[in-house]
């Protein structure tokens, strides 16, 4: 799954919904296999739109767990319209495209910070199903 998708997944355990620790899940960098597909082309409009939507703190946290500590702690301020992007803006967006869209976790583990349940990613597909006693 794309690194972007980590921004939309939380723990499936209902009791964790009252906690603030059920999102984002915690990714164990050493157990996550990352693959980059450089052929996925850059779409500045999509990047601008998705940045508006993502929870930035969660992006920074997950990306750093996956081994990249280079993201700024605050969300980059960018123009609303792709036509008004400066060269520097484009560099920022391209970097984020590489991180969020081109990079996938193909195998790995993610854990709920609240209940500690571990979910697996296999063949790039995250599995958020719970065992019967937790569902």
């Amino acid at each position, binding site marked *: 799954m*794309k690194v972007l998708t980590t*921004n*939309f997944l939380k*723990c499936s355990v209902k009791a964790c919904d009252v906690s603030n620790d059920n999102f984002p899940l915690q990714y164990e960098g050493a157990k996550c296999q990352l693959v980059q597909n450089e052929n996925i*082309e850059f779409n500045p409009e999509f990047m601008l739109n998705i940045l508006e*939507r993502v929870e930035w703190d969660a992006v920074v946290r997950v990306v750093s767990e996956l081994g990249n500590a280079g993201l700024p702690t605050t969300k980059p301020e960018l123009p609303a319209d792709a036509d008004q992007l400066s060269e520097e803006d484009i560099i920022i967006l391209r970097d984020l495209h590489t991180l969020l869209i081109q990079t996938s976790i193909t195998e790995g583990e993610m854990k709920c910070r609240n209940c500690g349940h571990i979910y697996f990613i296999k063949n790039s*597909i995250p599995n958020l199903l719970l065992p019967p006693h937790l569902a």
Partner: protein
Amino acid sequence: MLPTPYVKCDYEKVYEPAEDSFLLLDSLEKDLQFLQTRFDGNLAIVCELGPGSGIVTTFMMQNNIPSHNGALYLALDINPWALEGTLQTATLNNCIKENGHSGYLEPVQSDLTTGLRDKQVDLLVFNPPYVPAEEVPEIPDTKENIDQWLDLALLGGVDGMEITGKVLDSLETVLSPKGVAYILFCARNKPEQLVQKIMQEDPSWDIELIEHRKAGWEVLSVYRFMHK
């Protein structure tokens, strides 16, 4: 008329596209303009619950539903075979492109929306297991219990509404403020009564019948749910 995706899956493992699937495609096509206006080229997080063969998600990706500027298409199914089928159908119809403009497909194995961050889904589509049955089948222990996976795609427990009921209850939590949901019913689910009841309890809901059709001995309908 928009093209229908080409689908070739193992129908012993995933639900074969049928009248209900096509009614959903027709509903989305009918609402194409509505959806484009509502999302106005903005990003959309799309979520199909129980995609099965992947025909509906592929149709949306093929036709830029709901937005031209790309979307993240989350395909959530409990059945591992369905996730494989969805990827296969999207690939077969050339929807997994690398030009970055057709959106991105992300299959996720999950039980309905329990694993999704709140209030993110802009477009939700659901062709549920709506056939009335004594109970909802248990989730198979292994991927190899093929017949049981198929039962899970069909049988909806009492009134065929046990699964759909869960999704309706979670709509408020799952949909974004602009979010729209298309859900399929059969007549035995008593959708008219249900819709009236929801709107009476919370008048901020705007629910409309988009399409209905007689299919064999079933009458199927698709309703659109959103907030006014």
